[in-house]
């Protein structure tokens, strides 16, 4: 068991920003060395600088749903490599690898459960699964989540974290933006409440569809949120980006999200919003 992660840049950890095994963890934002069990207890938020680490869907499940109230939905959906896509790695190999690494079936998990005794449908994306990318499975799971919330007339909460559409599915991944948005149009017309929570990072196709379509949009502190990724923008315009660009605080200032909510307050904030709007 490693006590520290390697500092030597030549030996990169493959899972850069998720929490690796080890008793100690260095905060990537303030360099403070954190005791892992303490960090876990603090919802993977640095007690020193409040940096919100990227976490697995299990953390949000524990955080948001009342203990024992949850039922997982649509967990039988699996991606398939219908284009026979290969670019360096084969897509089918990537899917198998991501499943092994995360233990998840794809980049989203959907639950029905209760948040402070109020029934909701909760979807949680996982960035560790092929960059949280949206392919046919994510599109279908989100669409079914919307339909289920509509049928049961209960609120829908989606915790987003994604690099965008899943290129390995070609134009079909682009169609998932259309599909989820069309379902949300219907859900909204029928009076359904949808709250989206943007976590680090939410970019590309997910931001440009259900990410930005919440009746209420919340974000975690410091989360990167945007359409184009910062690297692409920098390449296109050939200049450095302003400090804090595309961070949650920037979006709040520009008027694109309602609130920045620390992880520890997320349940309470969601509960109060749902209480007021349903």
């Amino acid at each position, binding site marked *: 068991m490693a006590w520290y992660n390697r500092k030597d840049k030549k030996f990169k950890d493959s899972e850069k920003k998720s929490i690796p095994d080890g008793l100690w963890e260095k905060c990537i934002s303030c360099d403070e060395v954190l005791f892992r069990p303490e960090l876990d207890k603090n919802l993977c938020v640095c007690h020193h600088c409040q940096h919100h680490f990227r976490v697995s869907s299990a953390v949000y499940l524990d955080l948001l749903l009342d203990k024992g109230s949850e039922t997982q939905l649509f967990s*039988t*959906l*699996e*991606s*398939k490599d219908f*284009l026979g*896509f290969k*670019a*360096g790695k084969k897509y089918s190999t990537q899917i198998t690898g991501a499943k092994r690494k995360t233990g998840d079936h794809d980049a989203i998990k959907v639950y029905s459960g209760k948040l402070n005794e109020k029934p909701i449908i909760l979807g949680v994306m996982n960035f560790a699964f092929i960059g949280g990318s949206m*392919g*046919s*499975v994510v*599109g*279908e799971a989100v669409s079914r989540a919307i339909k289920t919330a509509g049928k049961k007339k209960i609120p829908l909460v989606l915790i987003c974290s994604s690099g965008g*559409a*899943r*290129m*390995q*599915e*070609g*134009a*079909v*991944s*682009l*169609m*998932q*933006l*259309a*599909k989820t*948005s*069309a*379902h*949300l*149009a*219907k859900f*909204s*017309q029928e009076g359904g409440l949808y709250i989206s929570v943007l976590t680090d990072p939410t970019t*590309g*196709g997910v*931001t*440009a*569809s*259900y*990410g*930005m*379509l919440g009746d209420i949009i919340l974000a975690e502190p410091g989360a990167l*949120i*945007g*359409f*184009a990724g910062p690297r*692409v*923008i920098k390449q*296109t*315009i050939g200049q450095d*980006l302003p400090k804090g*660009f*595309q961070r949650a605080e920037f979006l709040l200032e*520009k*008027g*694109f999200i309602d609130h920045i909510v620390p992880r520890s307050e997320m349940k309470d904030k969601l509960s109060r919003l749902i209480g007021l709007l349903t």
Partner: protein
Amino acid sequence: MPKYYLDFEEPIRELDERILELESQTDPTQETLKEIAKTQGKRHQLIEKVYSKLNPWQRVQLARHPNRPYSLDYIQILIPDFIELHGDRYFSDDPAVVSGIGHLGERRIAIIGQQKGRDTKENLYRNFGMMRPEGYRKALRVMNLAEKFGLPLITLMDTPGAFPGIGAEERGQAEAIARNLLEMSALKIPIIGVVIGEGASGGALGIGICDRFLMMENTWYSVISPEGCASILFRDAGKAPEAAESLKLVPSDLQEIGICDRIIPEPNGGAHRDKDSAINNLSQAIQEELAALEKINPENFLDIRIEKYDALGFYQELK
């Protein structure tokens, strides 16, 4: 603009030039006329040969051909009484997209098209057809106008993507596109989307939700440009031809998958060699499609679109 030849079109240049030279003779002799006819025949055969076996990367290049008709070229002929409508009413007027109303044949329609420029100056003005948030919001304004007055909507897609810039992000590029996806899904008017050149990603989809998705023969539509895909997945933008192969982005592939509903044939040698017949083919296709869509009860469009896009996903479900 001078005629431009892609590398695989080079053999045609020689014959084009020979024909021009012969035709420029004053008082051509019987001999000359015969030779012109012969060379034209040869050119026809050569073009057929070159174009009958294009690979995806060549089709991507054709879609970007600088002599290809752009949105305004189509609009001028399709809609002789076109009135352009400007501005999003919030921030500015985005010249990367042209929108307005007019008659297509007997019908009143609204049309929205992404517009590229022919030269550097024009391209700077049109931003290479890359829309900013105000462009998507202008488009939405015109869509809502069309719905209010019962005009069917035609959208022409021709963009390398939505503009990735600081201002575009500040003004909510993602929000603008997402809003259009949601609102377009629910519009109570028929929508026909046509890819006339490049159809890249959310940039194209932001005006691209539709009931019938048409593609001109030499175009592409994808979640990302072949260069973008190559630089991310192959870590080498030079691998774009391979990426174009993998992405399955040409009309025939997309028709097989079910995304493309109809491929509009282009004249021999591509739309840039005979704009009028390309535009004519499109006009005919749109009018046929509109005639069918007009029979649908406007209240049903949202459900029909949900059903359409629901089918465009491929996954397996374990028992």
